[in-house]
């Protein structure tokens, strides 16, 4: 009951967070701007339409990458801001004066972030179907994959961010999460640009950092090729299990770090 109350209040806080709302509005405006050519192209017919097909699909792919990337940023920022905001405003003092354990507070906050991200993923899911329809293509993979994979990925980013914000300023925490995600992309096998770290070190960094490539739903979206990738259930289970395990470890680190943290108005 306590955790649920904290989670729902955290989510309500996001809906009243002007910074998050502003970013979402700007983001939606950019998406609208990008998607308007699709509407024009959809109206075309004949040889012109056939010529534009590849352009449309490239545009859709680019937009979905943007949406997905923004989601990672949102997950990291929401997790950092919700904990840091309570400290900064001092609202945490009244909350923690209640019979609430520190881990319960963090778990409530974390679940509030996941609720926000679940809604974002549903929006992303609907938006990806809308764009592919506008582009005249269709998604050939099972829908749950497009929901579960980004949720797990955002769970990892928010857990890392929550762990970092128990030790540092939220802007620094989000910056570090960004750096981690870039590093993770750069050290994965076959990444571009080519390896900039010596082989063994690159392997260690790859093992330690979250494997964003594995957890990317774009593996299944396959808009440009419209081809269904055959992945068995056990592979899904292992990949998602790895992601959830990574998120759990990061969350437990956050709980451990928050255990002895001084709570005061910053």
């Amino acid at each position, binding site marked *: 009951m*306590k955790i649920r109350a904290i989670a729902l209040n955290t989510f309500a806080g996001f809906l009243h967070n002007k910074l998050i709302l502003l970013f979402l509005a700007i983001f939606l405006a950019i998406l609208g701007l990008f998607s308007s050519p699709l509407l024009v192209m959809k109206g075309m017919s004949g040889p012109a339409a056939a010529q534009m097909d590849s352009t449309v699909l490239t545009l859709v792919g680019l937009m979905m990458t943007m949406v997905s990337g923004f989601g990672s940023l949102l997950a990291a920022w929401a997790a950092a801001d919700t904990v840091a905001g309570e400290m900064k405003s*001092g609202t945490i*003092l*009244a909350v923690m004066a209640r*019979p609430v354990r520190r881990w319960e507070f963090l778990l409530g906050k974390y679940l509030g972030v996941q609720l926000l991200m679940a809604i974002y993923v549903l929006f992303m899911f609907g938006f990806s179907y809308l764009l592919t329809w506008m582009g005249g293509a269709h998604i050939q993979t099972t829908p749950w994959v497009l929901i579960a994979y980004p949720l797990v990925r955002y769970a990892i980013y928010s857990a890392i961010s929550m762990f970092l914000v128990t030790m540092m300023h939220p802007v620094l925490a989000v910056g570090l999460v960004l750096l981690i995600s870039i590093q993770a992309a750069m050290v994965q096998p076959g990444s571009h640009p080519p390896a900039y770290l010596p082989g063994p070190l690159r392997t260690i960094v790859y093992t330690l950092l979250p494997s964003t490539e594995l957890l990317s739903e774009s593996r299944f979206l396959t808009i440009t090729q419209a081809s269904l990738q055959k992945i068995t259930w056990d592979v899904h289970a292992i990949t998602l299990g790895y992601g959830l395990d990574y998120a759990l470890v990061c969350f437990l680190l956050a709980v451990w770090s928050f255990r*002895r943290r001084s709570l005061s108005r910053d």
Partner: protein
Amino acid sequence: MTAAAIEFQNVTKVYRRVFREEQVTALSCVSFAAGAGEVCAFLGPNGAGKTTAISLLMGFHFADSGEIRVLGCAPGDVDAKEKIGFLPENFAFYKYLTAPKLLQLHLALAGNQSAEAAARIPELLAKVRLNGYEEMKIGKYSRGMVQRLGLAQAFLGDPQLLILDEPTSGLDPAGRKEILELLVALKAQGKTVFLSSHILPEVEQICDRIVIIDRGRLLREGRLQEMLNLGDRVEIVADRITEEIEQAAAAGGAVVERGAHGVRIVLDAARKREMAEALWSAGCDVVSVNPVKSSLEEVFLKVVEHREAGA
């Protein structure tokens, strides 16, 4: 003293800056206790360490050494927090909530979502004179209204121990009076109240016990009446006093006031006998000799000034 609701034993808290050698000793070997059912005032100038001590008490910060017990538990213990109502200094709130929603949230955080507890919310809001503002977002409240709401959430759930950091801060005189009346009512119900305040005449009206700290050190602790009677001055009321005696008393450092019931002479207790004998010898009538009861403000200033002089 009755069983202690709050106990500090040689508590030390030092704030250290990360990557700097700078250290601030907020509390140094502080020991005191507040009994169950008492109203205990925690006094000290700004920066004395009051808020730090309250933060330690609530488990927000951790002491470097010493022991703290709250209702027989360690600070931050969930069992103890179930019986505590707390008002932080400058109570902060979720601006997007209304007062009933905030109180419902706090009930949920307390693990109490009974219909009976929820039904008490309007009564509680009326008690702190916030009825009629149920639909208004807290972000639009005035400073005084926020403070009243803070008190309402502290009173929520009928706590056994109330820890209030500056409870009358931001309130107008009428509001302060109402809050003091509420605290008196709580005291009558046998609740323990531990409060910090700078408004000493108000504290004096309701407190049983006083703890004074400054610069992290305990300066004085004891029952209010004992502290107020510690005055080292006496008041002699005499009649038929001559001009010469009056001038001699004033020259000796006594305060002489003429009133309807005679002349009131206030002087150091050490000179009481000398003055009384002089009055008798001069043929005056000595009506009464009484110790001068100090006000809490006088006691507080004397204690703090003495500390500063010794520092």
